[in-house]
C-alpha cells in the first residue's frame, strides 16, 4: 500500500523520478537508496545508500524520518566475536569531498515497528534525510530481493554472482 501512495505522490515530480536512484540537495548527492524484502511477520527493515559531499565543508546527517514507529541511524559493530548494533549518536559526518556509504555490516538506517506490513520486492519506501546544513531531502528506498531469486532452485543462473567462473574445475 505504501507503493501506491508514493506512486501517486511521485507523479507530480515525474522528471525528477526518472533518476529515482539518485537524489541531491545542496552539495550532497545520495545514490542508490535500497532496502531488502522482509518476512511477512518482520518488525524491522533496513535502508542503505551512499552520500557524496561535493562541497568543501563537512556535512552531518542528523536524522532520518519515515512513516514507522521508530527510525534510527545504526552502526553494526563487531568487537572480537560479538556483533552488536548501536545508535549513531550525534549524526553521521560526511566529510567535504568524501563519500560515506551505508552498507550491510556497517552503517544502516533501521525502520522499526513494521507491524504486519512487510517490505516487498520493488516496493518504494519513502523517507526524509535531515542534514545539519543542507536541510531536508525526500528520498525513496527501492526494495530488493534478499537473495537472488534463484535460491533454492538448482541449475539456474546463480552465475550472476560470478560464481561459475571460479569453479570450472569442479565440473562433476
Amino acid at each position, binding site marked *: 500500500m505504501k507503493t501506491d501512495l508514493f506512486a501517486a505522490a511521485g507523479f507530480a515530480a515525474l522528471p525528477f523520478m526518472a533518476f529515482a536512484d539518485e537524489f541531491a540537495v545542496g552539495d550532497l548527492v545520495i545514490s542508490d537508496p535500497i532496502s531488502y524484502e522482509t518476512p511477512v511477520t518482520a518488525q524491522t527493515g533496513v535502508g542503505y545508500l551512499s552520500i557524496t559531499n561535493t562541497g568543501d565543508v563537512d556535512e552531518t546527517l542528523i536524522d532520518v524520518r519515515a512513516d514507522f514507529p521508530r527510525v534510527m541511524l545504526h552502526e*553494526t559493530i563487531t568487537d572480537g566475536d560479538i*556483533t*552488536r548494533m548501536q545508535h549513531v549518536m550525534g549524526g553521521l559526518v560526511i566529510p567535504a569531498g568524501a563519500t560515506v556509504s551505508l552498507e550491510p555490516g556497517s552503517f544502516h538506517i533501521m525502520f522499526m515497528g513494521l507491524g504486519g506490513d512487510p517490505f516487498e520486492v520493488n516496493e518504494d519506501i519513502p523517507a526524509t534525510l535531515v542534514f545539519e546544513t543542507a536541510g531536508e531531502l525526500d528520498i525513496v528506498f527501492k526494495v530488493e530481493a534478499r537473495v537472488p531469486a*534463484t535460491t533454492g532452485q538448482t541449475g539456474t543462473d546463480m552465475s550472476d*554472482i560470478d560464481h561459475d567462473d571460479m569453479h570450472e574445475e569442479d565440473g562433476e
Partner: protein
Amino acid sequence: MIRLGLAMAGALAAVSAPALAQDQFAECRASTVGEAAIGGPFELIDETGNTVTDADMITRPTLVYFGYTFCPDACPLDSARNALAMDFLEEDHGHEIDALFITIDPARDTVDVVRDYADVFHPRMIGLTGSEEQIAAAAQQYRVFYRAQRGGDEFYLVDHTTFTYLMLPGIGFAEFFRTSATPDEVAELTACYVDNL
C-alpha cells in the same frame, strides 16, 4: 581434543591444524576447535510448534546459525550467505545440505516469526525457537553468547556471536564460519567435509 573458548579459537582459526592421526577430515580443517568443544544435544521448538531434538534436526550436514529476526543488518547477511552456500554446494558438488536458524530472542521470535524469516532465505532453512531455558541451553552447547541491550521497550537489540557451525550427523561439530566467509568459502569447505564423510 582441547576445549577452546571461541575467542581463542578465533585467534587460531587462520592457523592450519596439525594433521591428527586418523582424522578423516584432516584435509578440510580450517580451525583447530575440536569436535567436542561445540554443539551437542538440544531440545527446541520447530516451525510447526513441535518439540524437536538435535537428532531430529541434524540428519544431514547442516549449517547452524544463532541470531534474531529483529536484526535487519548482520543476521540477514549471514543467513543469505548460508543460503547461497547451500545452492552452490548443490550445483557444484551435488550435495544437499540443510540449515537451521536458531533464535536467541525467543520472546519476540515465535514459531511463526522464525519460520517466516527462514523461508525468505532458503526452502531448506528451518527456523527454531524455544523457551528461554531451551534457547539458553542450546546456545551454551554451541558456546554462543547473547545479551539483550537494556532499553525496556519492544525495540530492544541483542548483542550476539554470529558464527555459523557446520554440523555432521553422527559426528557433530566440523567447522565454523565467521561473517567474513564468502558463500564460496562456506560451500567449498563444507564440500570437503561432505566428500570425506
